[in-house]
């Protein structure tokens, strides 16, 4: 931002802001909220919904506050009579094309258009009802995302999200005038196009035009079925975000309350995806070292850099856009999908349950996990490994429905086994976390010493920069790893698929020389996942990330290989990383998909 200051008055209060600031941002500095719909802090300016219009002295028309930069001497009124009337009309016009069946709507109570209509006490419909697509059947082809055009107000947040943050553009603006709509290629079902199911569009949709497929009733049915033994696993990123559903600050650590709430909802056992995150590190770390050995010692053709495989949106992105790099993806299943088959084999045996009677539910910050659980490869146990995937938001709804006062809950601990985890697993929830966890373990396997960073905090891989690069020099290795002596391990970390695309293009044209690349499909990683509480913006995601790192620092065990349950499962069941059983249960393969 330029250093030149611009002086203006907003509602007669003088203010001085940087040149280039929008009227909207300038008003925020004075604590005036101008309502917005198409505007989103993560996205470029669109200026198409017009609810943010303000009055400018000397200007005949009302400029849009989000799209108009401040200028010297400007006098702005954000709530004049003219503004109020115009704004009310804009909302009424939007409603005239919106299927306002609010009481039946999934977003009832969390809809930005509904809130606005409520704020302005919009009563009777002033304009003709012009909803075109009310009778049109919702697109429910995808197991992750539902699209209902009758709810769409064409703000295009989803289109900008899909293009600018995710570089996918599965959704685009099509047709024009009164026919204009948000559509896929040839209006095909969402499941048949390049959509990665990341759900970032859902996070930013102000109405219910894009929502997750919810499985709340199915899960309650399973809980109430006396024949079913229902176990639940919770992803790392959920524990620093679920509190937001109950009015708590983003990043508040509520792990213990979440466990209590799950138990009160009636889940038979409350277990932790963090356990399998630790297991992922054992498998993936070993896989990386094996690949390096094959490349450096045996001179084999090995696919390097190795790419992480925890993020199912990223996986589908690769399958569509870079199918020639599928061998580079780690064969490790994501922690969710490692948990499923272990629950229905190892765990079922330990607790003496028939896996056929077991139901595995996951609580995930992610909508793509719903798709992942449906993949035909994910039946390593002989059953569907993970039965239902709920987002953090859906869990919030269940807790509300059950009348549990979340804020007042006592902390409880996870059940074991499959409930023990480490700080390394917790940080899986944010960008750079998988890399840091992998380095903590791999470095120690190779050298017998802890990573050379203060307090195990590998700062260079942390933070919200889109693409991070780091090198770790490996020194004083154990004899069996002598080939790694002095090697500089080059790593890269990307979050958000647009950044991942930049990294992939560098790998493709040979301009990058990485050994290991971590990609999380969503901006800021899983804490910014498509299933996380709304709203989202960089500030909120930073607070959640801070919560994750606090959780890590607060745990006594912070390296995956030191997790006693992990050590136990290798001793009694899996025997060794990349072993025969691991191969059957914990590893997978990928399928090339159409680019278009």
């Amino acid at each position, binding site marked *: 931002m330029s250093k030149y200051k611009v002086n203006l008055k907003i509602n007669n209060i003088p203010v001085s802001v940087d040149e280039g600031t929008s009227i909207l941002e300038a008003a925020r500095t004075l604590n005036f909220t101008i309502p917005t719909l198409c505007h989103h802090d993560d996205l470029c300016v669109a200026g198409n919904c017009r609810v943010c219009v303000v009055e400018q002295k000397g200007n005949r028309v009302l400029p849009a506050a989000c799209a108009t930069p401040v200028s010297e001497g400007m006098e702005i009124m954000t709530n004049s009579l003219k503004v109020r009337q115009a704004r009310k009309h804009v909302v009424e016009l939007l409603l005239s094309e919106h299927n306002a069946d609010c009481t039946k709507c999934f977003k009832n109570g969390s809809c930005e258009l509904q809130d606005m209509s409520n704020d302005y006490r919009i009563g009777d419909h002033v304009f003709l009802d012009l909803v075109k697509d009310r009778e049109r059947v919702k697109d429910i082809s995808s197991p992750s995302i539902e699209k209902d055009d009758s709810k769409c107000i064409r703000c295009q947040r989803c289109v900008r999200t899909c293009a600018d943050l995710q570089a996918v553009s599965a959704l685009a603006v099509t047709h024009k005038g009164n026919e204009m709509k948000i559509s896929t*290629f*040839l209006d095909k079902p969402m499941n048949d196009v*390049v959509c990665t199911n990341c759900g970032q569009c859902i996070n930013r949709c102000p109405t219910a035009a894009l929502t997750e497929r919810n499985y709340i009733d199915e899960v309650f049915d399973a809980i109430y079925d006396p024949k079913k033994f229902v176990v639940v696993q919770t992803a790392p990123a959920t524990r620093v975000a679920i509190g937001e559903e109950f009015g708590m600050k983003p990043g508040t650590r509520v792990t213990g309350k979440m466990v209590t709430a799950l138990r009160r909802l009636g889940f038979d056992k409350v277990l932790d995806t963090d356990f399998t995150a630790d297991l992922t590190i054992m498998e993936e770390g070993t896989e990386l070292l094996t690949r390096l050995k094959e490349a450096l010692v045996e001179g084999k053709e090995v696919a390097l850099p190795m790419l992480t495989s925890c993020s199912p949106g990223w996986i589908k992105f690769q399958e569509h856009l870079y199918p020639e790099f599928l061998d580079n993806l780690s064969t490790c299943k994501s922690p969710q999908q490692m948990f499923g088959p272990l629950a229905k084999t190892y765990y079922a045996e330990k607790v003496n349950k028939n896996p056929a009677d077991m139901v595995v539910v996951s609580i995930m910050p992610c909508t793509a996990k719903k798709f992942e659980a449906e993949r035909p490869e994910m039946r390593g146990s002989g059953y569907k490994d993970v039965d239902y995937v709920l987002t953090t938001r859906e869990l919030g709804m269940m807790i509300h429905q059950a009348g549990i006062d979340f804020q007042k809950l006592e902390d409880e601990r996870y059940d074991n086994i499959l409930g023990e985890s480490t700080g390394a697993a917790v940080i899986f929830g944010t960008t750079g976390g998988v890399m840091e966890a992998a380095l903590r373990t791999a470095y120690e396997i190779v050298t017998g010493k802890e990573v050379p960073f203060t307090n195990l905090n590998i700062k260079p891989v942390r933070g919200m920069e889109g693409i991070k690069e780091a090198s770790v020099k490996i020194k004083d290795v154990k004899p069996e790893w002598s080939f790694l002596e002095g090697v500089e391990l080059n790593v890269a970390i990307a979050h958000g698929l647009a950044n991942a695309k930049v990294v992939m293009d560098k790998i493709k044209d040979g301009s990058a020389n990485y050994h290991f690349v971590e990609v999380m499909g969503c901006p800021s990683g899983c804490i910014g996942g498509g299933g996380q509480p709304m709203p989202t913006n960089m500030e909120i995601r930073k607070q959640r990330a801070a919560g994750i790192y606090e959780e890590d620092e607060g745990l006594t065990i912070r390296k995956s290989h030191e997790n006693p349950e992990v050590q136990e499962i290798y001793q009694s069941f899996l025997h060794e990383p990349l072993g025969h059983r691991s191969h059957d249960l914990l590893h997978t393969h990928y399928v090339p998909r159409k680019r278009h």
Partner: protein
Amino acid sequence: MTRIEEFVKEQAEKHGRDRNSLMPILQAVVQSERFLSEEAMVAVATELDLSTADVFGTATFYTFMDTFPRGKNIIRICKTITCHMKGKDAIVDTLEDMLKIKLGQTTTDGKFSLLQANCLGWCHKGPVMLINDEVYPEITPEKAVEVVSKYLKKG
């Protein structure tokens, strides 16, 4: 490589592969194929490294870029206000009657599609009818039948 893929590649070589080239390439395809098939749009998206939804979005913005096949002759009646006031409805009624189709439809023999168009820039001589690239200003129901009959005979 299919014929369309080759054609699109040639056009990409000619016009370039940046986003600005999307329009001239789409226009060339429409010129040659009369409409943008799914195959053609996929080929364009592949050549220019765009998403197909983007290509589809651009194509559907323009009235003269069809994304599905139309009749051999495309009749467009200007629907904007001047032509409307000068009686374009009567022209539409007459042609619907003559061709036994409704606006937006194509005759079963595939010879004619009857469509409306936004302003064609002939307000001073409305109502105006466009058949393929031929303009017919100051059209009356009788003249419309006469003109369309000529195309009917030409086949």
